[in-house]
C-alpha cells in the first residue's frame, strides 16, 4: 500500500480531530478505528462542549464521523494489531485490513472500560450485563436494574436507567460519593426510583440465559434483570510500548505540550495521554496539536 503521511490510530474525539486538521493540511491520512466515534458515542448528554447547549453522545460521535468522511478521509473500522519502525517511517498492521505504511503516527487509542472481572460476566454480557448505558437503558423499561460504580459515569448511568426502569440499585464500594460531581450525587440521592447501597461490592453474578441476580460482599442478594458496569476506564498502550514509547507507571503515554512522544514521528492525543482532564474538548485540542506537529515535521522533511 502507498505510504500515508499520517496514520491515526483511534476514532474518538482526539483521533477524528487530528484527521480533520490533517485533511486541511492536505496530508494523506488514514484513520484506523476499532470503535469509530470512540467512547463519547456511549456518553449520555454532553453539555460542556461549546456550540451545543446539550447534545447526545451518539449524535456527537456521528457528526464527527460524518465530518471526517466529508473531508475524504476513510475510517477503517478495524483493530490496529502492531506498529513497527520501517526506514524513516512506520508500518501499522491491522488485524484484518492489511498494512498502513506511514510517515507519522498519531496514537489516539483512548482507554478501555474496566470490567468487573467476575465469572459469568462475559457469558452474560449483552444478556443483562451492559457496558453502554445510553445504548441499553431503554431496554429495561419497567424492569429492575443495577449500576456498579460511584463516579460521574456511574451516576449519569443510574439517572438515565431510572428514566426507564422501575427500580435502580447503585452498588458502590465507598461510604459516600466522593469522586462524583456534587450536583449529580444530589440528583441520584433525591431520585425516588434509585436506591444507593454504599459499602457494597458485587462479588458474584448469576443467571442462566439472562442475568437474574447479583450477590454482594455484605451477604445481600439482589434480583435484577440488568447490571450496568461503570467502574471507570484503564489505559492499554501495549501497541505503543512495542516501539519504545514511554508511559507513566499507570500506563498512560507521556507527551510534551505539542503531543510529541519520546519517539520521533509518533504523537499521542486524548485519553491515552497523561492528561489532567479526560474530556472531549481536551482530547480534540490534543488531536489538533498532534496533527499540527506531524504537519510541521513533514513540511521540514523530517
Amino acid at each position: 500500500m502507498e505510504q500515508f503521511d499520517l496514520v491515526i490510530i483511534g476514532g474518538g474525539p482526539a483521533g477524528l480531530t487530528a484527521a480533520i486538521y490533517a485533511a486541511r493540511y492536505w496530508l494523506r491520512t488514514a484513520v484506523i478505528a476499532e470503535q469509530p466515534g470512540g467512547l463519547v458515542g456511549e456518553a449520555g448528554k454532553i453539555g460542556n462542549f461549546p456550540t451545543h447547549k446539550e447534545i447526545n453522545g451518539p449524535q456527537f460521535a456521528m457528526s464527527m464521523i460524518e465530518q471526517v468522511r466529508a473531508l475524504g478521509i476513510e475510517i477503517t473500522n478495524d483493530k490496529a494489531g502492531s506498529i513497527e519502525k520501517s526506514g524513516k517511517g512506520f508500518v501499522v498492521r491491522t488485524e484484518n485490513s492489511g498494512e498502513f505504511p506511514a510517515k507519522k503516527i498519531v496514537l489516539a487509542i483512548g482507554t478501555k472500560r474496566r470490567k468487573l472481572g467476575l465469572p459469568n460476566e462475559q457469558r452474560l454480557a449483552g444478556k443483562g450485563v451492559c457496558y453502554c448505558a445510553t445504548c441499553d437503558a431503554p431496554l429495561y423499561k419497567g424492569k429492575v436494574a443495577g449500576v456498579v460504580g460511584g463516579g460521574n459515569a456511574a451516576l449519569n448511568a443510574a439517572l438515565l436507567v431510572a428514566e426507564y426502569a422501575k427500580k435502580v440499585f447503585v452498588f458502590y464500594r465507598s461510604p459516600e460519593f466522593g469522586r462524583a460531581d456534587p450536583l449529580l450525587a444530589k440528583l441520584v440521592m433525591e431520585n425516588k426510583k434509585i436506591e444507593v447501597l454504599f459499602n457494597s461490592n458485587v462479588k458474584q453474578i448469576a443467571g442462566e440465559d439472562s442475568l437474574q441476580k447479583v450477590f454482594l460482599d455484605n451477604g445481600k442478594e439482589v434480583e435484577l434483570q440488568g447490571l450496568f458496569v461503570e467502574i471507570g476506564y484503564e489505559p492499554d498502550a501495549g501497541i505503543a510500548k512495542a516501539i519504545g514509547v514511554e508511559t507513566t507507571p499507570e500506563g498512560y503515554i507521556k507527551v510534551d505540550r505539542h503531543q510529541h512522544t519520546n519517539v520521533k514521528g509518533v504523537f499521542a492525543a486524548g485519553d491515552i495521554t497523561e492528561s489532567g482532564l479526560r474530556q472531549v474538548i481536551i482530547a480534540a485540542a490534543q488531536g489538533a496539536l498532534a496533527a499540527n506537529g506531524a504537519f510541521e515535521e513533514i513540511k521540514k522533511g523530517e
Partner: protein
Amino acid sequence: MAEFESDVTEADFEETVVKQSANLPVVADFWAAWCTPCQILKPAMEKLAKEFKGKFVLAKINVEENPGLSERFKISGIPSVKMFKGGKVVAEFTGAMPEPAVRQWLEKNIK
C-alpha cells in the same frame, strides 16, 4: 441491493425471518437510533449483505418500534445480531464488532 436486506417489523417478522430462514440464513440486526455502536454496525451489515450476494438476508429491526420482538428475543443489549436458520437462532453476538470480524462471523456461521 434491496433483495438482500429489508426493514422488518412485527407484522412481517414471521414471513421475512422465520419462514425465509428455512431456505437461507437470515441475519437479524436489532438496533436503535439512540445507540452509536448500532449506527456503526448497520451500514457495515448492509455492505456485507451486498457483498455476500444473497448468501444471507439481512433483517433490520428497530427495537424502539418493535417492542414485541425485543421482548420475544429478550433483547437486553444492542446492537444484537442473531442468525436464523430453520426458524431458530443458531448464532448471535451483542455489541458492535469491526466489519472484518463480522465478515468472519458470517463466513463461519453461514455454512
